[in-house]
């Protein structure tokens, strides 16, 4: 076995006492833990009778996060249906927009969680919501970076612009501070004023920085010219325009000129009179020490990275990123010993090591949602080499299967998982077959939905098994018609035979049929099993009799016996049914038919006359049988006589 990547976490089961041994069993997505009977020496007291369920993933039970799962499912299904035949450069904007969709869904969830976290009165829940919010924030951060680096795959020049956007999106407190400052009576005197200006410059928002500076400039007319100089420098900073005609080299040249100008200003000590402006100038030059002095404003090492790139190397190429990333991280985090998981994930992203990103995220998060969807999107962008894992499927499929299996443990979200399995070409079907049988079927409507899923995918085994479950349930509640209709749907001949037997037994016992309308309208389903056909035909006989179409009824009855559709045990009942037909004034059975009836009767009585083993048959029963047979014989002979006479008569 390979070594583990991280130390496994330990979870304490609060209700189990120390010193006791635990037994466990795997469930679906959870573990059941119980106390064993094993008594260690010194252990006293009675055992705890409870079974504890330990679940790793709580998120799927959170009502707000459920929206995330549902909406992202919708996006996922839409992504799978993008046509494969378009060349990839046409598809890139589509993929980018899908990525943005995913991100907006994450943000919406985050905002809602934030609101609930603030408004809830329960302190524990508030903490939990807060944790979820921070996890979602991290997820969105990582996703955004992956979108910039991998999906959008911006080349040098626009790469920096995208990274700037990325940082701006995730550092919202600048705007809040700016708002505070601007709303105060004298913005230029506010204590956070210079912080805001520096933050704007660090994020490359130079226009806003100039506006802020303008306020200060009006206050101190004496220092007007240096403010004007700074304004000039800020306004002249070149930004690369990807849609424009300027090439990257031209932009680089222009930028160097500007950089030299700023350097000259600094060397000339132009800003010596105002230390804030001097600091700004140093930042514009990209001086690392000055940047590091503003660690609290930067907040994170990646902000530091982007700012440094902005002012030192705006034409950075994607392949060069990781040098800068590594060095920035070490410079920024020199006080702390080990980087946090988020930092190492981001670093792996800057190094363009997609697999490492996915691996680290899988370890850090307790839910496969993020890695599954991100990997799927990257796979569609053809960015993942087909990295075959040693159990056959590729990475994307593995993650999707894990995620969907996790969904299946949820009482309600299992329906989403079906679509995920559908799009895992190698193992998805097998997983689905195994899982779909375990969905609890409380109502008929749910069973119908599950059946529809199975039938659409031609999973006939599962269809049969589900229908059998429903049919058994109906049978247990004595709803024979319902049971029969389930077995017809499953095309289960054996079960249909069983239920038809029950119907017939019911008839023998009660003298009437239950569920007439079902039997009447079986249609071609009647042919499913012999017994069922007999049931249908027998019911038809009754109908014909009721409509007084005696001749047809008689023919049907006879055919039931001669064609051997009827079970031998039922023949007595059939013959008894023939009695009233024989007793009619009008001759219904022809002579030939009567001969056949007699033949059947003889067959029946000869089998009855064989020494029967059940000698406990009471005398009365035997008497009744004998009387019946005698009556039949009498009726048959009389009918025969009349039939012969009738057929022999010549009509004049």
């Amino acid at each position, binding site marked *: 076995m390979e070594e583990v990547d991280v130390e496994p976490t330990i979870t304490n089961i609060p209700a189990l006492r120390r010193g006791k041994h635990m037994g466990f069993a795997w469930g679906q997505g959870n573990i059941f833990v119980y106390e064993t009977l094993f008594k260690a020496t010194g252990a006293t007291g009675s055992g705890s009778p409870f079974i504890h369920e330990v679940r790793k993933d709580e998120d799927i039970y959170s*009502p*707000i996060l*459920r*929206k995330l799962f*549902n*909406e992202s*499912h*919708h996006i996922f*299904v*839409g992504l799978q249906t993008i046509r494969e035949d378009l060349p990839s450069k046409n598809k890139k904007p589509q993929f980018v927009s899908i990525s943005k969709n995913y991100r907006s869904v994450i943000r919406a969830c985050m905002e809602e969680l934030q609101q609930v976290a603030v408004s809830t009165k329960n302190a524990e829940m508030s903490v939990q919501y807060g944790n979820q919010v921070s996890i979602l924030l991290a997820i969105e951060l990582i996703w955004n970076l992956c979108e910039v680096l991998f999906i959008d795959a911006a080349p040098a020049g626009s790469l920096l612009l995208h990274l700037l956007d990325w940082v701006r999106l995730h550092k919202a407190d600048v705007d809040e501070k700016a708002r505070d400052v601007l709303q105060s009576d004298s913005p230029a005197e506010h204590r956070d004023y210079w912080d805001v200006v520096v933050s704007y410059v660090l994020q490359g928002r130079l226009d806003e920085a100039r506006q802020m500076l303008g306020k200060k400039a009006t206050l101190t007319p004496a220092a007007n010219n240096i403010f004007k100089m700074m304004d000039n420098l800020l306004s002249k900073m070149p930004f690369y325009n990807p849609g424009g005609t300027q090439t990257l080299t031209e932009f680089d040249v222009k930028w160097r000129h500007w950089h030299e100008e700023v350097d000259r200003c600094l060397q000339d000590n132009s800003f010596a009179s105002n230390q804030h402006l001097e600091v700004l100038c140093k930042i514009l030059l990209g001086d690392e020490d000055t940047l590091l002095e503003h660690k609290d404003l930067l907040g994170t090492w990646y902000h530091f990275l982007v700012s440094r790139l902005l002012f030192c190397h705006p034409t950075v190429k994607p392949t060069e990123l990781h040098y800068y990333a590594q060095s920035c991280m070490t410079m920024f985090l020199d006080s702390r010993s080990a980087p946090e998981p988020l930092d190492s994930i981001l670093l792996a992203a800057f190094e363009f090591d997609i697999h490492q990103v996915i691996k680290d995220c899988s370890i850090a998060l307790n839910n496969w949602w993020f890695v599954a969807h991100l990997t799927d999107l990257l796979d569609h962008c053809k960015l993942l080499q087909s990295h075959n894992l040693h159990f056959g499927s590729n990475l994307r499929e593995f993650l999707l299967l894990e995620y969907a299996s996790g969904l299946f443990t949820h*009482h*309600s979200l299992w*329906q*989403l998982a079906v679509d995920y399995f559908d799009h895992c070409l190698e193992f998805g079907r097998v997983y689905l077959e195994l899982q779909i049988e375990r969905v609890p079927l*409380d*109502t*008929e*409507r*749910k069973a*119908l*939905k599950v059946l*529809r899923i199975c039938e*659409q995918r031609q999973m006939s085994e599962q269809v049969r098994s589900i229908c059998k479950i429903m049919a058994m*349930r109906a049978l*247990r*509640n*004595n*709803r*024979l*018609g*319902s049971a029969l*209709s389930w077995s017809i749907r499953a095309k289960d001949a054996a079960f249909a035979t069983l239920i038809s037997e029950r119907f017939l037994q019911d008839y023998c016992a009660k003298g009437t049929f*239950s*569920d*007439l*309308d*079902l039997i*009447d*309208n*079986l*249609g*071609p*389903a009647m042919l499913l099993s012999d017994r069922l056909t007999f049931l249908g035909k027998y019911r038809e006989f009754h109908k014909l009799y009721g409509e007084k179409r005696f001749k047809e009824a008689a023919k049907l009855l006879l055919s039931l016996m001669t064609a051997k559709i009827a079970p031998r045990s039922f023949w007595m009942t059939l013959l008894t049914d023939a009695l009233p037909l024989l007793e009619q004034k009008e001759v219904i059975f022809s002579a030939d038919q009567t001969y056949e009836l007699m033949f059947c009767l003889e067959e029946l009585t000869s089998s009855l006359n064989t020494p029967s083993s059940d000698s406990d048959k009471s005398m009365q029963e035997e008497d009744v049988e004998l009387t019946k047979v005698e009556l039949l014989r009498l009726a048959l002979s009389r009918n025969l006589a009349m039939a012969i006479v009738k057929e022999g008569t010549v009509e004049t």
Partner: protein
Amino acid sequence: MENINAKYVSQKISKTRWCPVSYSSLQQPEVFATGSWDNEDNKVSIWSIGNHNNSGLEDGFEGDPQILCEHKHGGDVLDLQFLDQERMVSASSTGAVTIFRYHPNTHTISVLQHWARAHSYPCDNAPCTALVCSSPEIVTVGEDGRIVVFRADQEGAVRVIGEMRTRMLPPHKESSLKLSVVFVRECRQQHNSRGDLPKDHGGFDGDRAPLHCVDRHPNQQHIVATGGQDGMLCVWDVRQGGTPISLMEAHSAEMWEVRFHPTNPDHLFTCSEDGSLLHWETASHSEMPSFLQGGRNSSVISHGALTPAGGNRPLSSAWLCGDSGKGCLETTHMLPSQTMSVNSLDIIGQCLVCGTDGEAIFVNRHVPV
């Protein structure tokens, strides 16, 4: 289609119903109720899409449904109907029937009445599959095969009708005096419960697929539309039973609900397991009989089964024109893209609400009727 928004609500919706508005005030409905299913804790909730004057509510999109209140519900909500503007009745998968009262002032729901075992087997719970109300009477049917009549103010069941052995369909309201109930499974019989014993009004030989939903034309009581397991929309003329007047391939999976528009019955709505909601529109309105109008392109395959018996084709019942050559039906998809199964829909005026298994509610306030 631009007017339809999805609202994700973290519960699979099995039924959505508009709260009835008084016909005197010609306003559009603003409040609707939903019932959930397949949750560990199911709920009945009330939502509003009106413009909110209350400052306490969050402002989302205009028309974004906001939840007003909810109440837990034991078992899946299999049917939900409004008795009047404040009371609604729910049918549960545990066999219980409950009357809820919504208090619009305090935005709370309370339970008025609860019949716990309205439907049951001897040893099990039987889900109560459907109900219909005609205040103050409530008629429910369940999987145990019985029809039970309740009165809103009385404790016990007023009447239990028959031991019908087939699975039951939603019963349908005919008028305030008599309630007619239509049964499902391979045949259909209409039972008139005026007397104590149901009388058989004749059976229909039909298609063999089980039916899931039925709706009666609001003005012409003899026209009935049904939808079933095979997704076919059938229009029947009750007077001439036997075969449906027209059969249309509507959906590729079970059809869960079919609804005539209550005030504009040339429009019909169906929703299905395959995730689509269709709006059917017939071409009549004018004095001309529909067979004289120019044929409109019909996006639907209509197998004309029968031409109506009798010489004159009634002018306004365009539903009964079964001939595909005349092309009198137009269909539009109402939802933007294939979603998961649409379980329920309701329409009043121009407002349509539907709920799906993707845990989303769609509201369209500008349905072209």
